[in-house]
């Protein structure tokens, strides 16, 4: 499955003037949004519970960063993410490799995984909570289950589409199983697998924050809901900004790693 999100169809070469103009428009747009937000919160009488003053949000954000109260939640979420991704990456790549060794098994399993992949697995969250409780275990299980599918599908695609000619040539030159894997199969398959791992990481992060929001006792998602229920709106907005920044940064790091892995 191709990932449509990251392929920017923008032309590579922008004229310098056009680029300057569009940067200006972008900046103007963002400034305009903040100004409208400010005016709506202070002048136009939008309820403070719905839309807190952006200045208060900014102060709260600084306070959150300074006080370090996010450390515990961040550790919980990142810990869950690390375990879930380790499980799904190890399981998905291994199983994908085993299945990809035979055309027949690919034909058996690939449509099955693709069909399950099209179900929003978040539906099964109540079951995960029932089995694993409200703690980190249910988030890990859900994150691993959701991220398993893009990883295994891409691994099958990666190893399954290696040109048989390469394999035959390597064999006829006397490559052992290990050499074949290390020097032919892996380099040929790794770009597709890396894409799968990146997609898996993104959905694991998303589903873990999501399940923390829906049912949990700790973590970044939980904290946002907690603040919402306490009606501490300015702080909640600040926390949302913080969590989004973390998520965007993590995704950027992973995309960078993917690009680097593909270059080598």
């Amino acid at each position, binding site marked *: 499955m191709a990932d449509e999100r990251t392929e920017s169809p923008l032309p590579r070469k922008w004229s310098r003037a056009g680029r300057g103009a569009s940067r200006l428009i972008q900046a103007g*747009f963002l400034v305009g949004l903040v100004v409208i937000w400010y005016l709506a919160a202070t002048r136009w009488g939008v309820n403070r519970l719905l839309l807190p003053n952006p200045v208060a949000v900014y102060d709260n954000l600084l306070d959150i960063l300074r006080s370090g109260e996010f450390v515990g939640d961040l550790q919980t979420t990142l810990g869950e993410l690390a375990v879930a991704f380790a499980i799904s990456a190890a399981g998905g790549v291994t199983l994908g490799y085993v299945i990809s060794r035979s055309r027949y098994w690919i034909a058996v399993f690939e449509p099955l995984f693709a069909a399950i992949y099209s179900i929003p697995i978040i539906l099964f969250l109540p079951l995960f909570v029932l089995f694993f409780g409200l703690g980190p275990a249910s988030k890990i299980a859900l994150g691993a289950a959701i991220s398993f599918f893009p990883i295994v599908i891409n691994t099958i695609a990666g190893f399954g589409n290696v040109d048989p000619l390469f394999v035959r040539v390597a064999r006829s030159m006397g490559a052992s199983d290990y050499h074949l894997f290390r020097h032919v199969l892996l380099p040929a398959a790794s770009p597709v697998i890396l894409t799968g791992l990146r997609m898996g990481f993104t959905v694991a992060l998303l589903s873990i924050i999501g399940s923390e929001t829906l049912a949990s006792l700790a973590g970044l998602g939980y904290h946002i809901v907690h603040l919402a229920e306490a009606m501490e709106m300015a702080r909640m907005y600040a926390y949302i900004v913080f969590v989004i920044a973390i998520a965007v940064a993590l995704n950027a790091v992973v995309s960078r790693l993917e690009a680097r892995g593909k270059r080598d």
Partner: protein
Amino acid sequence: MTGAAPKRLPLLRGLARRPWFARAIVIAALFAVWEIAARWFVDPLFLSPPSEVVASLDKVFGTRGVPAALQLTLFELTVAFGLAVAIGLALGLAIGLQPLVRRSFFPIVLLLYGMPQVTILPLFILFFGIGAASKIAFGVTHGVFPVIVTVVAGVQNLKPILLTSARSMGASRWQIFRHVIFPHMVPSFFAGMRLGMSGVLLGVLLAELYVSIAGIGYFTTLFTQNFDPTKLLGLISVLAAMAILLNAVVRRAENRFARRRAE
């Protein structure tokens, strides 16, 4: 299957050669494991065997409010999908047809698309309440971005000369859209609709599970809290079937229009 297969193949070996048959066996084996585990190894408060789940499907539908909840969720999905496609198409065209606008706003769209929207779910409840409106709104924000992105991608390599010549021949705005722009972007538009449908499903279901007073989220919570895994599994299976069906419908539409264009 290859024609080289020997003619008098025993039936079983012939079947085993067909991937769909092995796939059916794998699925059956999974259900068997589930059945055995639920019958003899797992506490019935947490898991019930598939045979029982299927047998009690009518009880799930018989539960007061469940048919209405399914209907409500389907309604939310439909409205959210319709809005996501309409808004996505309008925004995509507005952004995609002008190079300057595209260069300015498309990065913003991609940035928003990459954000974990579930963090702002509590805000949606605050703004739109706990009824259907918040589910629809959350579904729209999940579904609209893939539509925008694919519409922009679909119209951006439209040759300006086509637009200019259509205009110089006196085509109206609507005619240009109908006969020049639309045919050009059909394949990517339908791909976007499919991605939008998965987005809408995700958004609506997330919002349903977060808080709900009449939709299916209410009943999943109820069945979980009552430790009634039979009904919970039944309801979830129905919803999963619904999701697969909706995806299949959109995918079929996509294939059909892609073929028509190819002809």
